[in-house]
Protein backbone atom coordinates (compact mmCIF):
# COMPACT_ATOMS: atom_id res chain seq x y z
CA UNK A 1 0.00 0.00 0.00
CA UNK A 2 1.45 3.37 -1.01
CA UNK A 3 2.66 5.47 1.89
CA UNK A 4 2.00 8.83 0.30
CA UNK A 5 -1.66 9.75 0.02
CA UNK A 6 -1.65 13.39 -1.01
CA UNK A 7 1.50 13.68 -3.14
CA UNK A 8 0.25 11.27 -5.83
CA UNK A 9 -3.07 13.11 -6.14
CA UNK A 10 -1.36 16.50 -6.42
CA UNK A 11 1.00 15.05 -8.99
CA UNK A 12 -1.89 13.62 -11.03
CA UNK A 13 -3.55 17.07 -11.03
CA UNK A 14 -0.20 18.66 -11.99
CA UNK A 15 0.33 16.13 -14.73
CA UNK A 16 -3.17 16.40 -16.13
CA UNK A 17 -2.92 20.19 -15.92
CA UNK A 18 0.31 20.16 -17.91
CA UNK A 19 -1.22 18.09 -20.68
CA UNK A 20 -4.48 20.01 -20.84
CA UNK A 21 -2.73 23.38 -20.75
CA UNK A 22 -0.23 22.31 -23.41
CA UNK A 23 -3.01 21.09 -25.70
CA UNK A 24 -5.71 23.73 -25.12
CA UNK A 25 -4.07 27.03 -24.29
CA UNK A 26 -1.81 27.41 -27.36
CA UNK A 27 -4.81 26.69 -29.59
CA UNK A 28 -7.03 29.19 -27.75
CA UNK A 29 -4.28 31.82 -27.73
CA UNK A 30 -3.49 31.31 -31.40
CA UNK A 31 -7.17 31.59 -32.33
CA UNK A 32 -8.31 34.41 -30.08
CA UNK A 33 -4.99 36.23 -29.70
CA UNK A 34 -3.60 36.13 -33.23
CA UNK A 35 -5.67 34.52 -35.97
CA UNK A 36 -9.08 36.11 -35.24
CA UNK A 37 -7.81 39.65 -34.41
CA UNK A 38 -5.63 39.73 -37.53
CA UNK A 39 -8.48 38.17 -39.50
CA UNK A 40 -6.18 35.48 -40.84
CA UNK A 41 -9.06 33.16 -40.05
CA UNK A 42 -12.60 34.45 -40.34
CA UNK A 43 -13.78 34.95 -36.74
CA UNK A 44 -17.13 33.47 -35.75
CA UNK A 45 -19.83 36.07 -35.24
CA UNK A 46 -20.82 37.04 -31.72
CA UNK A 47 -24.08 35.07 -31.64
CA UNK A 48 -22.28 31.93 -32.78
CA UNK A 49 -19.56 32.26 -30.17
CA UNK A 50 -22.10 32.96 -27.46
CA UNK A 51 -24.02 29.82 -28.39
CA UNK A 52 -20.81 27.79 -28.14
CA UNK A 53 -19.97 29.31 -24.75
CA UNK A 54 -23.51 28.70 -23.47
CA UNK A 55 -23.30 25.01 -24.20
CA UNK A 56 -22.82 23.10 -20.91
CA UNK A 57 -20.11 20.91 -22.43
CA UNK A 58 -18.03 23.94 -23.45
CA UNK A 59 -18.35 25.34 -19.95
CA UNK A 60 -17.36 22.06 -18.40
CA UNK A 61 -14.28 21.76 -20.64
CA UNK A 62 -13.24 25.35 -19.91
CA UNK A 63 -13.80 24.79 -16.20
CA UNK A 64 -11.70 21.59 -16.29
CA UNK A 65 -8.93 23.41 -18.18
CA UNK A 66 -8.90 26.25 -15.64
CA UNK A 67 -8.87 23.96 -12.60
CA UNK A 68 -6.19 21.62 -13.89
CA UNK A 69 -4.01 24.46 -15.18
CA UNK A 70 -4.27 26.17 -11.77
CA UNK A 71 -3.18 23.00 -9.96
CA UNK A 72 -0.37 22.61 -12.46
CA UNK A 73 0.75 26.12 -11.59
CA UNK A 74 0.44 25.46 -7.85
CA UNK A 75 2.68 22.39 -7.99
CA UNK A 76 5.32 24.03 -10.15
CA UNK A 77 5.30 27.25 -8.17
CA UNK A 78 5.67 25.29 -4.94
CA UNK A 79 8.78 23.51 -6.18
CA UNK A 80 10.18 26.69 -7.68
CA UNK A 81 10.07 28.17 -4.19
CA UNK A 82 11.18 24.93 -2.49
CA UNK A 83 14.17 24.13 -4.66
CA UNK A 84 14.78 27.22 -6.78
CA UNK A 85 14.71 29.74 -3.96
CA UNK A 86 15.32 27.06 -1.31
CA UNK A 87 12.45 28.16 0.88
CA UNK A 88 11.40 24.66 1.90
CA UNK A 89 11.37 25.80 5.53
CA UNK A 90 8.27 27.86 4.71
CA UNK A 91 6.40 24.82 3.40
CA UNK A 92 3.16 25.50 5.29
CA UNK A 93 2.86 29.04 3.96
CA UNK A 94 3.93 27.99 0.45
CA UNK A 95 1.48 25.09 0.29
CA UNK A 96 -1.35 27.24 1.64
CA UNK A 97 -0.64 29.96 -0.91
CA UNK A 98 -0.13 27.64 -3.89
CA UNK A 99 -2.89 25.09 -3.40
CA UNK A 100 -5.16 27.57 -1.62
CA UNK A 101 -4.71 29.87 -4.60
CA UNK A 102 -5.56 27.03 -6.97
CA UNK A 103 -8.69 26.23 -4.96
CA UNK A 104 -9.72 29.87 -4.88
CA UNK A 105 -9.11 30.20 -8.61
CA UNK A 106 -11.14 27.05 -9.17
CA UNK A 107 -14.00 28.51 -7.15
CA UNK A 108 -13.90 31.70 -9.23
CA UNK A 109 -13.84 29.60 -12.39
CA UNK A 110 -16.80 27.56 -11.15
CA UNK A 111 -18.73 30.74 -10.37
CA UNK A 112 -18.02 32.33 -13.75
CA UNK A 113 -18.42 29.24 -15.88
CA UNK A 114 -20.90 27.01 -14.12
CA UNK A 115 -23.04 29.08 -11.76
CA UNK A 116 -23.39 32.42 -13.52
CA UNK A 117 -26.39 32.39 -15.84
CA UNK A 118 -25.41 32.66 -19.47
Amino acid sequence: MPKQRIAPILWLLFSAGGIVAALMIPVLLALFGVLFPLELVAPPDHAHLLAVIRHPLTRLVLFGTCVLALFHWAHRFKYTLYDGLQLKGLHTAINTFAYGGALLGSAVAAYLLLLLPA
Partner: protein
Amino acid sequence: MARSITMQVARYRPDREAEPTMQSYDVPLRKDWAILDGLNHIKDELDGTLSYRWSCRMGICGSCGMTVNGEPKLTCATFLTDYAPGPVRVEPLRNFPVVRDLVVDIGDFMAKLSVVQPWIIRKDEETPDGEYLQTPAELEDYKQFSMCINCMLCYSACPIYGLNEHFLGPAAIALAQRYNLDSRDQGSADRMDALSASTGVWDCTYVGECSTACPKNVDPAGAIQRYKLTAATETLKSFLMPRGGR
Protein backbone atom coordinates in the same frame (compact mmCIF):
# COMPACT_ATOMS: atom_id res chain seq x y z
CA MET B 1 47.62 21.30 -33.06
CA ALA B 2 49.31 22.12 -29.78
CA ARG B 3 51.36 19.24 -28.41
CA SER B 4 50.20 19.58 -24.82
CA ILE B 5 47.20 20.64 -22.78
CA THR B 6 46.97 21.89 -19.21
CA MET B 7 44.87 19.79 -16.87
CA GLN B 8 43.69 21.57 -13.74
CA VAL B 9 43.07 18.80 -11.26
CA ALA B 10 41.32 19.11 -7.92
CA ARG B 11 43.52 17.98 -5.05
CA TYR B 12 42.30 17.28 -1.57
CA ARG B 13 44.52 15.57 0.98
CA PRO B 14 42.58 15.69 4.24
CA ASP B 15 45.77 15.06 6.23
CA ARG B 16 47.42 18.15 4.69
CA GLU B 17 44.76 20.67 3.75
CA ALA B 18 41.36 21.77 4.99
CA GLU B 19 39.98 22.76 1.58
CA PRO B 20 40.39 21.28 -1.90
CA THR B 21 42.86 23.11 -4.15
CA MET B 22 43.53 23.02 -7.88
CA GLN B 23 46.84 21.82 -9.27
CA SER B 24 47.91 22.25 -12.91
CA TYR B 25 49.74 19.66 -14.97
CA ASP B 26 50.79 19.78 -18.62
CA VAL B 27 50.06 16.52 -20.37
CA PRO B 28 50.58 15.48 -24.01
CA LEU B 29 47.60 16.35 -26.19
CA ARG B 30 47.06 13.21 -28.20
CA LYS B 31 44.08 12.52 -30.42
CA ASP B 32 43.46 9.13 -28.82
CA TRP B 33 43.81 10.23 -25.20
CA ALA B 34 40.81 10.47 -22.94
CA ILE B 35 40.79 12.56 -19.75
CA LEU B 36 41.57 9.32 -17.92
CA ASP B 37 44.72 8.81 -20.03
CA GLY B 38 45.79 12.29 -19.01
CA LEU B 39 45.24 11.42 -15.33
CA ASN B 40 47.17 8.16 -15.78
CA HIS B 41 50.00 10.15 -17.37
CA ILE B 42 50.05 12.49 -14.37
CA LYS B 43 50.03 9.54 -11.97
CA ASP B 44 52.74 7.60 -13.82
CA GLU B 45 55.05 10.41 -14.93
CA LEU B 46 54.39 13.63 -13.03
CA ASP B 47 52.85 13.12 -9.61
CA GLY B 48 52.33 9.69 -8.09
CA THR B 49 50.35 11.11 -5.18
CA LEU B 50 47.21 11.80 -7.26
CA SER B 51 44.26 9.59 -6.28
CA TYR B 52 41.32 8.69 -8.54
CA ARG B 53 39.18 5.65 -9.36
CA TRP B 54 39.25 3.80 -12.63
CA SER B 55 39.16 0.26 -13.89
CA CYS B 56 38.00 -0.84 -17.31
CA ARG B 57 38.75 2.34 -19.36
CA MET B 58 36.00 1.34 -21.81
CA GLY B 59 32.77 2.74 -20.36
CA ILE B 60 31.53 -0.40 -18.66
CA CYS B 61 32.74 -0.42 -15.06
CA GLY B 62 31.35 2.98 -14.10
CA SER B 63 34.32 3.82 -11.85
CA CYS B 64 35.86 6.87 -13.51
CA GLY B 65 33.04 9.40 -13.28
CA MET B 66 34.33 12.91 -12.54
CA THR B 67 33.37 16.50 -13.14
CA VAL B 68 35.05 17.72 -16.32
CA ASN B 69 34.78 21.46 -16.97
CA GLY B 70 31.76 21.51 -14.69
CA GLU B 71 29.89 18.58 -16.24
CA PRO B 72 29.63 15.01 -14.96
CA LYS B 73 31.48 12.74 -17.39
CA LEU B 74 33.00 9.30 -17.66
CA THR B 75 36.64 10.31 -17.98
CA CYS B 76 37.45 7.24 -20.08
CA ALA B 77 34.91 8.32 -22.69
CA THR B 78 35.70 12.05 -22.72
CA PHE B 79 38.58 13.11 -24.95
CA LEU B 80 41.23 15.70 -24.23
CA THR B 81 41.08 17.07 -27.79
CA ASP B 82 37.47 18.12 -27.21
CA TYR B 83 38.78 20.59 -24.62
CA ALA B 84 41.75 21.90 -26.64
CA PRO B 85 43.44 24.31 -26.31
CA GLY B 86 42.51 23.95 -22.65
CA PRO B 87 42.93 24.18 -19.80
CA VAL B 88 40.58 21.36 -18.85
CA ARG B 89 39.34 21.25 -15.26
CA VAL B 90 38.91 17.88 -13.58
CA GLU B 91 37.09 17.72 -10.24
CA PRO B 92 35.45 14.97 -8.21
CA LEU B 93 31.79 14.06 -8.84
CA ARG B 94 29.54 16.68 -7.30
CA ASN B 95 26.95 15.90 -4.59
CA PHE B 96 29.21 13.30 -2.95
CA PRO B 97 31.62 13.74 -0.04
CA VAL B 98 35.24 13.78 -1.23
CA VAL B 99 37.54 11.20 0.33
CA ARG B 100 40.74 12.29 -1.36
CA ASP B 101 41.60 14.17 -4.58
CA LEU B 102 39.12 12.84 -7.17
CA VAL B 103 37.82 9.95 -5.06
CA VAL B 104 34.32 10.34 -3.63
CA ASP B 105 32.50 8.39 -0.95
CA ILE B 106 29.86 6.27 -2.73
CA GLY B 107 28.46 4.68 0.44
CA ASP B 108 25.15 6.54 0.17
CA PHE B 109 24.51 5.27 -3.35
CA MET B 110 25.47 1.70 -2.43
CA ALA B 111 22.98 1.76 0.46
CA LYS B 112 20.20 3.13 -1.78
CA LEU B 113 20.91 0.53 -4.42
CA SER B 114 20.17 -2.34 -2.05
CA VAL B 115 16.98 -0.63 -0.81
CA VAL B 116 15.30 -1.09 -4.22
CA GLN B 117 16.32 -4.77 -4.40
CA PRO B 118 17.74 -4.64 -7.93
CA TRP B 119 17.55 -8.35 -8.65
CA ILE B 120 14.89 -10.73 -9.90
CA ILE B 121 12.48 -11.62 -7.11
CA ARG B 122 10.37 -14.76 -7.50
CA LYS B 123 7.43 -15.67 -5.32
CA ASP B 124 7.22 -19.29 -6.42
CA GLU B 125 9.01 -21.77 -4.22
CA GLU B 126 10.59 -23.94 -6.86
CA THR B 127 13.05 -22.85 -9.50
CA PRO B 128 12.32 -24.09 -13.01
CA ASP B 129 14.45 -26.74 -14.69
CA GLY B 130 15.62 -24.36 -17.38
CA GLU B 131 15.62 -20.63 -17.91
CA TYR B 132 12.73 -18.25 -17.42
CA LEU B 133 11.71 -17.59 -21.01
CA GLN B 134 11.07 -14.12 -22.36
CA THR B 135 9.95 -12.72 -25.72
CA PRO B 136 11.94 -9.98 -27.50
CA ALA B 137 9.08 -7.56 -26.76
CA GLU B 138 9.29 -8.35 -23.05
CA LEU B 139 13.04 -7.81 -23.17
CA GLU B 140 12.51 -4.45 -24.87
CA ASP B 141 10.32 -3.29 -21.96
CA TYR B 142 13.23 -2.99 -19.56
CA LYS B 143 16.33 -3.26 -21.75
CA GLN B 144 17.36 0.41 -21.76
CA PHE B 145 17.27 0.53 -17.96
CA SER B 146 19.53 -2.53 -17.81
CA MET B 147 22.25 -0.48 -19.52
CA CYS B 148 22.94 1.41 -16.25
CA ILE B 149 26.53 0.91 -15.11
CA ASN B 150 26.11 2.53 -11.67
CA CYS B 151 28.53 5.34 -12.54
CA MET B 152 26.56 7.87 -10.46
CA LEU B 153 26.83 10.66 -13.04
CA CYS B 154 23.04 11.04 -12.70
CA TYR B 155 23.36 11.64 -8.95
CA SER B 156 26.06 14.17 -9.61
CA ALA B 157 23.84 15.93 -12.18
CA CYS B 158 20.65 15.83 -10.08
CA PRO B 159 19.97 19.18 -8.34
CA ILE B 160 17.38 17.53 -6.09
CA TYR B 161 19.91 15.01 -4.78
CA GLY B 162 22.27 17.94 -4.24
CA LEU B 163 19.69 19.60 -2.02
CA ASN B 164 18.30 16.51 -0.32
CA GLU B 165 20.58 13.57 0.33
CA HIS B 166 17.62 11.41 1.38
CA PHE B 167 16.25 11.35 -2.18
CA LEU B 168 16.48 7.79 -3.50
CA GLY B 169 17.88 9.20 -6.72
CA PRO B 170 17.80 8.54 -10.47
CA ALA B 171 19.85 5.36 -10.94
CA ALA B 172 18.30 3.46 -8.02
CA ILE B 173 14.80 4.21 -9.31
CA ALA B 174 15.76 3.37 -12.90
CA LEU B 175 17.22 0.07 -11.70
CA ALA B 176 14.09 -0.67 -9.68
CA GLN B 177 12.12 -0.15 -12.89
CA ARG B 178 14.57 -2.36 -14.76
CA TYR B 179 13.34 -5.23 -12.55
CA ASN B 180 9.72 -4.07 -12.14
CA LEU B 181 9.31 -4.11 -15.92
CA ASP B 182 11.01 -7.49 -16.33
CA SER B 183 8.43 -10.19 -17.13
CA ARG B 184 10.39 -12.70 -15.01
CA ASP B 185 10.23 -10.55 -11.89
CA GLN B 186 7.50 -10.73 -9.25
CA GLY B 187 8.92 -8.26 -6.75
CA SER B 188 7.30 -4.93 -7.69
CA ALA B 189 5.19 -4.95 -4.51
CA ASP B 190 8.37 -5.40 -2.45
CA ARG B 191 9.93 -2.34 -4.09
CA MET B 192 6.85 -0.18 -3.76
CA ASP B 193 7.45 1.04 -0.20
CA ALA B 194 10.85 2.51 -1.03
CA LEU B 195 9.79 3.89 -4.42
CA SER B 196 6.50 5.49 -3.38
CA ALA B 197 7.82 6.98 -0.15
CA SER B 198 8.22 10.76 -0.03
CA THR B 199 11.97 10.30 -0.55
CA GLY B 200 11.26 8.01 -3.52
CA VAL B 201 9.79 9.17 -6.81
CA TRP B 202 7.84 12.08 -5.27
CA ASP B 203 11.00 14.05 -4.49
CA CYS B 204 11.80 14.23 -8.21
CA THR B 205 10.65 17.43 -9.89
CA TYR B 206 11.58 16.25 -13.39
CA VAL B 207 14.53 18.51 -14.01
CA GLY B 208 15.80 15.84 -16.40
CA GLU B 209 19.52 16.44 -15.91
CA CYS B 210 19.98 12.75 -14.99
CA SER B 211 18.95 11.60 -18.44
CA THR B 212 21.12 14.28 -20.06
CA ALA B 213 24.16 13.19 -18.05
CA CYS B 214 23.77 9.43 -18.54
CA PRO B 215 26.67 8.12 -20.66
CA LYS B 216 24.74 4.93 -21.50
CA ASN B 217 21.58 6.66 -22.81
CA VAL B 218 19.43 5.38 -19.98
CA ASP B 219 16.47 7.63 -19.24
CA PRO B 220 16.16 7.69 -15.44
CA ALA B 221 13.87 10.73 -15.56
CA GLY B 222 11.50 8.74 -17.76
CA ALA B 223 11.67 5.78 -15.37
CA ILE B 224 10.75 8.04 -12.46
CA GLN B 225 7.80 9.62 -14.28
CA ARG B 226 6.53 6.19 -15.29
CA TYR B 227 6.72 5.02 -11.72
CA LYS B 228 4.90 8.14 -10.51
CA LEU B 229 1.98 7.07 -12.68
CA THR B 230 2.18 3.52 -11.26
CA ALA B 231 2.29 4.79 -7.68
CA ALA B 232 -0.49 7.32 -8.29
CA THR B 233 -2.67 4.59 -9.81
CA GLU B 234 -2.07 2.44 -6.74
CA THR B 235 -3.04 5.35 -4.50
CA LEU B 236 -6.28 5.87 -6.41
CA LYS B 237 -6.99 2.14 -6.12
CA SER B 238 -6.42 2.28 -2.37
CA PHE B 239 -8.90 5.17 -2.13
CA LEU B 240 -11.49 3.29 -4.14
CA MET B 241 -10.88 -0.07 -2.48
CA PRO B 242 -9.57 0.79 0.99
CA ARG B 243 -9.45 -2.81 2.09
CA GLY B 244 -9.02 -4.50 -1.27
CA GLY B 245 -6.03 -5.95 -3.02
CA ARG B 246 -3.92 -6.76 0.02
